[in-house]
């Protein structure tokens, strides 16, 4: 395969940092008409930020953006849009209470004789939907009534409707079921055939190898390589992405002597997202949960925490059956949960480090006198938060330090079980190691740790055992040090070792 077509977009030496934390360090990227170009990298490698630079959401600190050979500076999304660049963001950018057509043409409504040409708008939307084979979606229906998958389709239609020359898709299959993924493939093919350049961001190896013509790899915000897909194997690709020997970076696993009694046991637990979940978690153990996004791995964690509780089966804590109906009950039983949505669910951003660290203690266990100042200070020191002082507001902290505060919040109540969901998402390498070390130290004190991560190396490096979730059920259990292929095989429903 050769990269045909002319160069539509070229990024050179793009850098970007937030509050002093570099997120992109000199990234190059070149997109040609009619190619599917995959952008790969671990979480936190800077893919989403690069996309946002391309979309005009962020302005790069330095570096150059060229469209059709001419240097441009986008200061608003609208300017990027007008230059023919459309982005499908990871988070939905739909207005729930507006119709499909209104969402698709938001900001670019066709106008005829002074008023929005509703008929044309709906007809055009209909045409695009038909073209995608999605004739079940009514352009005049409000988005709020659509399923997640259909909302994704609307997102794609919204991007397409701009007559984009470049379409960037950030994890477009994350929320899609398998058959919908097939449709997406089909769709991507057609777009390519029309001469549209597609920047495809995904974690899923199979998709990348199926679809893309070239692959660009980022690591820790830096450009690693751009190579034709045909010239890469999945092993090489992983090496590019990880770029280092992993094992040495993770703390030692638990020895048999460090493992204690069964702390948490689930037997046949289920709700409307997961079913028949059965496993045990021993004191001192770090157990990983792997699975694709939407597989139900987070649903298990959230059920243990009581956000969307189990409706069937039993949950035992230290041998005693318990009913966890809401987070408060979970917290009071000694179950902690480090959420994947740090800013939305984990922290009160305008409050001080101290107040956040004491949040759980105060919220769930009122009456227990707050720790002495020195205790809290010691706690914050033990998680190694770097800050001006404990009265600094957490919104001014980097992601890594914020995550340490979240951990401190749970440590302050001495949990028996700690569930951590994507504990290192969006934080830099140094902080990652600190978080890993902390989790392992915590386990050594007898806490049972359940860890969810979509970063396989991390999961494999940290876990004493790995549970793999597929389609709402546990597909299998792997021992420490299992291969990525083994995990991916189970996670994609193919069985151990089968990976595309």
């Amino acid at each position, binding site marked *: 395969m050769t990269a045909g077509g002319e160069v539509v977009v070229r990024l050179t030496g793009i850098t970007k940092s937030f509050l002093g934390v570099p997120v992109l360090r000199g990234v190059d990227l070149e997109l040609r008409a009619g190619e599917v170009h995959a952008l790969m990298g671990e979480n936190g490698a800077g893919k989403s930020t690069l996309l946002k630079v391309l979309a005009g959401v962020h302005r790069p600190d330095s570096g150059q953006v060229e469209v059709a050979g001419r240097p441009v500076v986008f200061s608003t999304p609208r300017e990027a849009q007008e230059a023919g660049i459309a982005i499908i963001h990871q988070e939905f950018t739909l207005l729930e209470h507006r119709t499909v057509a209104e969402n698709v043409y938001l900001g670019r409504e066709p106008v005829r004789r002074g008023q*929005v040409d509703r008929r044309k708008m709906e007809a055009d939307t209909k045409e695009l939907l038909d073209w995608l084979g999605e004739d079940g979606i009514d352009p005049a229906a409000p988005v709020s009534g659509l399923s997640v998958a259909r909302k994704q389709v609307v997102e794609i239609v919204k991007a397409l409707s701009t007559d984009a020359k470049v379409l960037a898709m950030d994890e477009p299959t994350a929320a899609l079921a398998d058959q919908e993924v097939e449709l997406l493939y089909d769709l991507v093919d057609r777009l390519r055939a029309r001469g549209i350049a597609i920047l495809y961001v995904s974690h899923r190896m199979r998709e990348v190898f199926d679809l893309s013509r070239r692959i660009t790899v980022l690591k820790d915000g830096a450009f690693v390589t751009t190579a034709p897909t045909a010239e890469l194997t999945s092993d090489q690709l992983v090496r590019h992405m990880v770029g280092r020997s992993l094992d040495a970076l993770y703390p030692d696993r638990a020895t048999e002597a460090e493992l204690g009694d069964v702390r948490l046991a689930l037997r046949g637990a289920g709700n409307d997202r997961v079913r028949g979940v059965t496993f045990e978690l021993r004191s001192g153990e770090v157990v990983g949960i792997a699975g694709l996004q939407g597989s139900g791995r987070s649903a298990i964690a959230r059920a243990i925490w009581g956000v969307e509780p189990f409706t069937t089966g039993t949950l035992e804590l230290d041998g005693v059956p318990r009913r966890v109906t809401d987070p408060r009950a979970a917290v009071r039983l000694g179950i902690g949960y480090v959420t994947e949505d740090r800013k939305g669910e984990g922290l009160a951003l305008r409050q001080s480090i101290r107040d956040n660290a004491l949040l759980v203690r105060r919220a769930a266990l009122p009456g227990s006198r707050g720790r002495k100042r020195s205790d809290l200070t010691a706690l914050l020191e033990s998680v190694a938060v770097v800050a001006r002082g404990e009265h600094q507001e957490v919104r001014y902290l980097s992601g890594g330090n914020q995550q340490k505060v979240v951990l401190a919040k749970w440590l302050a109540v001495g949990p028996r079980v700690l569930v951590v969901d994507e504990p290192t998402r969006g934080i830099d390498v140094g902080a990652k190691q600190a978080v890993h070390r902390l989790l392992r130290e915590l386990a050594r004190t007898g806490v049972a740790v359940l860890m969810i991560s979509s970063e396989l190396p991390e999961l494999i490096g940290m876990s004493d055992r790995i549970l793999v979730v597929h389609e*709402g059920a546990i597909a299998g259990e792997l021992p420490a040090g299992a291969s990525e292929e083994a995990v991916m095989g189970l996670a994609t429903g193919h069985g151990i070792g089968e990976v595309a």
Partner: protein
Amino acid sequence: MSVVQQKIEVARGATGGRSRRFTFTPTVTVYLALVALLVVGSVLVGVQGGVLLDQGGILNILTRSTVLGLVAVGQTIVIVAGSLDLSVAYLVGLCSLVAAETMAGSDGMMVPGVLLALGVAAVVGLVNGLVVTVLKVNAFIATLGVALILRGYLEENYTGPAGSVPRAFQHLGFDRIGPVPVGVLLMLLVAAAAWWYLRRTRGGYHTYAVGGDVDVARLSGVRTGRTIVIAHVLCAVAAGLAGVFLASRLGSGAPYVGTDAGYDLESIAAVVLGGAALAGGRGGVVGTIGGVLILATLDTIFDDLAVDPFFKDVVRGVVLIVAVALYARRKVSRRSA
């Protein structure tokens, strides 16, 4: 996504489709409530030996809706945009004065008077909008602040009614075409214009988008600041028009004609009663007019029943809370369905 979940989605989609056909949107609910109120009111008034919906009664309800309707239509636009305007009550008074003083009884000054009043209103709206978007002041505080400044100006410069409108101009306030007062037609025209703006123009589409989710709107290329400023200007112009209409009806300008009637909070109440979300992004002019008519009908019924005016306040308060609670309830049950 699991197979199980997918089935749920399918099932949900199906019920969603069906229920959409049958659900009462807030707008429908408002008008059903209005009809129910008219029926109950007619019976109650009938029992007392009166008639609620004779020509006089209808005229009464419509006349009472005029000024509040004008203000509330404007308020709808800012609330849909996710903002709020607490300065409208003083603005109504100010514009009645500007109009009446400019006209000063002269026929020739009618058009300049109206234009000047609306111009002043637009400027005040522009200030509101700029304070909200450029100075990033919360709309509640921004418009409360502007309201206080207007109040200071009025108190400093006026002690009572001032200016006078020519007789010709008073036709606006007192004439009827058949049974319908001109003022009501004016209000309905403004409502129709606002409806057209919100439902038919890009500006209106963007207003809903900004109120629904300002970040999504910005990502989609909407000029959010400009949209909010325009909403404030339109709201102020509608309030200005209410002031002009009152000048015509009162024969002069009156500084406190807007605040005595509490048009600031009352217009917000009418908009919310009409099914708009205070957070923005939902609601519309049609619902608002329904809300206004409900308030006017309540007033008329109470007058016919000779109810203590203090009791009216109690009922208004209860109606407001119950209505919004019902809207909130339905939203929750739909979400959990």
